[in-house]
């Protein structure tokens, strides 16, 4: 019997997967609106993108509330401790079959590198995508909000830039889920909530 530890609570897992689906769907419809490819058709893509965006807004409202009421927000306090160890592990140790230098616990779910990455998400990616997205949703209100001369090109480009950052994040994030003690261990944990101790 492998010893297991409960890491991800039910809401957290729901939040993660709902958000994952929404973000991927937003990328899909967003790049269609951007003119990169064609699938739903522009009009439908805009409609779906808008619906998905509002759904994500709703989900985030719950998630923010949850993080503060449960104190889980502390998981995201960045630390530089043992970051070099993490980098060294991904760059070399992992190839030599060394075990992961970070031990997950319910009180500390994210490794130091993850914390730094999520800090970037919170400080750069989210403000960029949300602010630009919010402005795009309310294009008609710019003048009333006091931005009569704001350029659509600027806002749209910022939004696209945010989207690309999310895409890059997604690629790396998905790959790093395979770096557990087995390739599917992290994913399993995010589904069941339980991570094997090893």
């Amino acid at each position: 019997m492998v010893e297991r530890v409960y890491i991800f609570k039910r809401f957290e897992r729901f939040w993660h997967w709902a958000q994952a689906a929404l973000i991927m769907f937003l990328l899909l419809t967003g790049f269609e609106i951007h003119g990169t490819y064609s699938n739903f058709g522009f009009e439908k893509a805009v409609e779906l993108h808008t619906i998905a965006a509002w759904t994500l807004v709703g989900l985030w409202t719950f998630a923010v509330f949850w993080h503060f009421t449960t104190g889980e927000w502390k998981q995201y306090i960045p630390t530089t401790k043992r970051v070099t160890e993490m980098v060294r592990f991904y760059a070399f140790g992992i190839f030599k079959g060394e075990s992961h230098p970070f031990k997950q616990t319910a009180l500390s779910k994210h490794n130091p590198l993850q914390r730094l990455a999520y800090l970037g998400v919170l400080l750069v990616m989210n403000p960029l995508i949300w602010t630009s997205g919010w402005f795009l949703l309310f294009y008609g209100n710019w003048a009333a909000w006091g931005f009569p001369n704001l350029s659509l090109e600027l806002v749209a480009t910022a939004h696209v830039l945010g989207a690309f950052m999310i895409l890059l994040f997604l690629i790396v994030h998905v790959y790093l889920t395979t770096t557990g003690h087995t390739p599917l261990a992290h994913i399993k944990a995010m589904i069941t909530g339980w991570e094997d101790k090893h």
Partner: protein
Amino acid sequence: MLRTRSAVALFAGALLGVVLSVTNLAQATVAPQTKSSPTADHSKFKELQKQFKTGPEVTKACLSCHTEAAKQVHRTKHWTWEFINTEKNQKLGKKNVLNNFCISIPNNQQYCTNCHVGYGWKDKNFDFTVEENVDCLVCHDTTLTYVKQPGMAGHVVGEEMEFPKGSGKILKPINLSKIAQAVGKSSRETCGNCHFFGGGGDGVKHGDLDSSLFAPEADVDVHMAVDGLNFNCGTCHQTSSHDVPGSRYTPTAKDKGGVQIRGKSEGENPATCVACHDTKPHKAEKSKHAARLNNHAEKLACQTCHIPAFARGGVATKMRWDWSTAGKMDAEGKPIVKKDDHGHIIYESRKGDFVVAENVKPEYYWFNGGITYTLLGDKIEKNDKPVGINKIEGNATDGKSMIWPFKVSRGTQPYDPENKTLITPHTTGPKSGGGYWTNYDWDRAARQGMADSGAPFSGKVDFVSTEMYWPIAHMVAPKDKSVGCAECHAKDGRLAGIKGIYIPGRDANPLIDKAAWLLALLTLLGVLGHAAIRIFASKKH
């Protein structure tokens, strides 16, 4: 059938349009007119209970009661064929401008003034101050039997007569007494008999005005649909003191006025979309994209989305007229007429090559209502760029412009290569008169036309490419047939050529896009490489 037949005949007979369209109408079902219950029955007026031999006789009778009517008409463009654009300081109007269809009025008045609201404008000496020369009936006839005979300078046939004199052709009179006793409001028919046939035939000039609007289905024109709103021309072009609003010389490109309210909207153009529909026309209860569409209405003229194509009623419009190829004869030295599969004339010795088209997608340009014409005396250069018979103004940043749909008629037309001016050729009339359409002699046609215009002529005729812009405002489609999002929000969409705005789906910063995709690809390769090394390393262990 009827339409094709009449269209062909129209070309052949130059300005026979009026005659034939009336014939057309007599046979077509005539739509019921807007309900109106006049308080006067003109058949009871003894002034009208007599035989009239000429048009001016009828007008005299009209003016005996409507004492100010002729004075009002005298002040309008319909009478003067002149319009002073004070902003551009140009003397315009039908009398002064040129186009790239039949080109110009001078020396062709006999025929052109068939569509003048007057009697007897046969040359430049016409007296514009005579009240009984106003033609009341051409706008107020309700019998659809009032016909102005081509070549008679706007006169009508009140008595049996031979025309042209010595031809042996006898023209039957129209019943002026009956027509006068039945006068009423103007109608699609009275307006359309001239305005649907501009350029010398059905639908030729405008593209959004043709005989299909006599009785259109909702798909062709949602406002004029006989089984729908059944608008007249005058429903939008609400006329006061005989002055019909809705100018093509100084159009209202962006109407900021909103819905027109009685007593508050004096002097505003009532013929704009906004005059009824307001500046935020899309309502949330009717459209899930109302707010978004209203944002669009800040930059796009309503017409841009709501008129997906012009010439939609089954009548082709002329897109190109190449005068430079006119004058070719067949082996026997006779003039040629060539037609396409639909019976549209595509070459005529008298006029040159034509391109006609139906269901034409407009071209789109920023437009602030400013139009400058190239007038007869203006110097032009023959080069790669066509001469703009009119030039439209507008851009993304002037705050006055909207993106508008246009028909752009292109072609070549005669110009004087030495004086570097356009030419107003004499085209119409009998062979003895020297018109191009009977003599095929450019030198003579140009000399006479330019003399009539009072313009110098070097004796040389060459041809220059020209283009002319016609804003499209009629043939509004039902809302479910309006232009879809993806037709502009695409790389090669309808608005591909519009500068100065960012259109999602059309525009992207190419540098950011390229760099970001490259980075995404490298990242993907990076993680795949990392994975490959892991797999490779684990096998070695």
